[in-house]
């Protein structure tokens, strides 16, 4: 177990080493989360996976050429092969019938194989400097020292400021290619810059989570942020926050356990946040979607019952007569149990009154029922006149739209149709005075 003092020690950032590690991981996580938002929104999430796997041979080549773990050589190699993999995917999908997903899978696995091959060659060569090279596989934030912070942190800052600087252009290139073309934006150039920044974010990020799991650093925070907002600005900030939080968690694991790889823990923290967001996020979360669905079906049931009351009243010329469950079921095919619950809801809302197994419409209930019937018939007429739908085809569509039309649209419909009195089936369209 982690001792409590351990946490205090860590959080106080007393030791210089811890400070470097925490600061470094936070910067790297923010850089990759921000870039990840663009990758996700441009539907390139899996290309990121290919880039991160392709970085391994580059790192090994950098090491083989320099003979040391000089970060500049390793990063140089990493960026070269990472960028090559984007290029290859592009070439393969453009010049052959091979689909994008196959091209991505092929690139990532073959590049990774070459990387592993080089890694084993280095290991078998017995170069004393090679220890720690395999940390690039699963990441080890705790190995970051002061000079690393300047190199990696500096590059992370470069990525972040690149996004801030070219924000407008990136947004246009990502979402509105046509507009970008018409205003004469150099699309190729900005796509290239974006891909370079992506490769850079991946290349420096492997320090923390390693090549195999790097994709999560870009994809998961972006996919999580998507649950909380539709606004790109907010999405970038939320993704960056999630990235920073998980970065701290990862640094802490690295600090507390000697041999624990950091990457998997950061990814687990990411995934937990992602799943919580997926379930509980307002508006887009599973729970809120389920509640909304429930509310909608609740409302539709109520509307349908009140409509049935109204139509019975219309038929017999008496809206306030006592009705039994059977009366309602004869008019419309309700499921008995659902009808009974619906009637209970309506009684609670005082739109109907329950008297010894019979039900009577209240004034309030009649008004609602009348409005639904009106919208239904207006819509049928609208479909007939404006969309030239046949008389016998208009009912089903009206049956769903009647629950959705807002009072504003209702007014518009009335005006557009010039306050008609009859629907296509020659039924009277009721107007409340």
């Amino acid at each position, binding site marked *: 177990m982690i001792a409590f003092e351990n946490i205090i020690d860590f959080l106080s950032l007393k030791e210089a080493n811890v400070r470097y590690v925490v600061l470094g991981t936070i910067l790297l996580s923010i850089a990759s989360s921000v870039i990840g938002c663009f990758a996700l929104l441009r539907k390139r*999430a899996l290309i990121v996976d290919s880039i991160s796997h392709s970085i391994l041979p580059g790192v090994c080549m950098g090491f083989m050429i320099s003979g040391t773990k000089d970060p500049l050589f390793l990063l140089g190699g990493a960026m070269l092969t990472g960028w090559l993999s984007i290029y290859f995917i592009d070439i393969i999908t453009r010049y052959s019938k091979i689909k994008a997903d196959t091209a991505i899978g092929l690139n990532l*696995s073959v590049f990774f*194989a070459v990387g592993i*091959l080089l890694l084993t060659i280095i290991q078998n060569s017995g170069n004393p400097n090679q220890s720690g090279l395999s940390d690039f596989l699963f990441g080890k934030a705790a190995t970051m020292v002061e000079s690393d912070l300047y190199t990696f942190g500096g590059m992370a800052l470069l990525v972040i400021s690149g996004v801030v600087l070219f924000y407008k252009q990136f947004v246009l290139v990502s979402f509105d290619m046509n507009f970008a073309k018409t205003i004469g934006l150099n699309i190729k150039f900005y796509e290239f810059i974006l891909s370079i920044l992506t490769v850079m974010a991946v290349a420096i990020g492997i320090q923390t989570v390693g090549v195999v799991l790097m994709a999560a650093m870009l994809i998961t925070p972006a996919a999580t942020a998507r649950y909380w907002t539709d606004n790109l600005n907010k999405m970038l900030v939320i993704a960056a926050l999630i990235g920073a939080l998980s970065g701290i968690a990862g640094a802490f694991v690295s600090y507390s356990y000697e041999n624990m790889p950091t990457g998997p823990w950061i990814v687990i923290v990411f995934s937990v946040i992602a799943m919580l967001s997926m379930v509980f996020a307002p508006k887009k979360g*599973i729970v809120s979607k389920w509640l909304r669905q429930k509310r909608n079906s609740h409302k539709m049931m109520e509307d349908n019952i009140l409509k049935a009351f109204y139509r019975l009243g219309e038929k017999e010329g008496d809206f306030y007569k006592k009705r039994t469950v059977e009366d309602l079921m004869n008019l419309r095919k309700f499921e008995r149990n659902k009808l009974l619950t619906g009637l209970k809801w309506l009684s609670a809302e005082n739109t109907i009154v329950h008297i010894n197994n019979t039900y009577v419409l209240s004034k309030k209930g009649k008004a609602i029922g009348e409005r639904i019937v009106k919208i239904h018939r207006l819509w049928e007429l609208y479909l007939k006149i404006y969309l030239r739908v046949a008389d016998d085809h208009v009912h089903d569509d009206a049956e769903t739209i009647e629950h959705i039309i807002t009072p504003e649209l209702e007014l518009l419909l009335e005006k557009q149709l010039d306050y008609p009195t009859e629907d296509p089936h020659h039924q009277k369209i009721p107007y409340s005075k």
Partner: protein
Amino acid sequence: MDFKFELIIIITACLVAVSSSIIGCFLILRKMAMVGDAISHSVLPGIVIAFMLGGKLGSWYLLVGAAVFGIITTFLIEFFNKKGGMQHDATIGVVFTSLFAFGIILVTVYARDVDIDQDCVLYGELDHVAFEEGITMFGQIIPYTIVRLSVMLLCIITMVVMGYRGLFLTTFDPAYAATIGISVMAWHYVLMASVSLSTVLSFGSVGAILVVAFLITPPATAYLLTDKLKQMIFLSVGFGITGSVIGYYFATAIDGATSAAIASVLGMQFILVFVGKMVEKKYFNKVAVTGE
């Protein structure tokens, strides 16, 4: 080096390559290459849990563990996408990284109790097959790995031969397949289960990640050369076998991991065919222009 030693390793590699090549054809034609990639990563926790429960490489525990996690992966990808409303490509990325991360943590935490390490996860230990115990047949010791891989290959061949119509129709015309009463869903899960089983059986020899290269690369190379499914399957098996043989000698020559060398050779084959195709296209285009 001892000839028998070489033969055993090459045979093992070929068995993995052939079964993966066959399954891979269907994967890439169904645009499911990345789902295959995801499964091969995310069976890892299943394998580790099976090891912790006392399973050994190739035992039933492992098969069950891998199959369960393979199906969990497929299910989660579907669930996150349909119910969770997550973008499809992101779903694949999120699911496999989470499960793989979970697996790696298990490996690290229980490293002392479990007989696998991170290297094994990454690139397997193909050379170890030659020192394995086995059953004696025709006066020779045949390592258990080879026996297991042969059984798997037989199962896959049987599945493809017997279910060819179902696989073919659900791959190319799922709507038509559904109307004549072939269950598209059932074949989907059969295929996903075979991907997870072949991953777990190839796990000890080529590792969980490199098996993706075996699954995708030979079929992709074959797909460049033909449009016919049967030809594609045979061609990709051919590429798998030649890649394994060349890759083995390549690995000995440069003193690197055998499985990684084979996967690299498979990649080289793809590049050669791809470039060849491009050159051919250029040449034929010229002929067509002058012909006019």
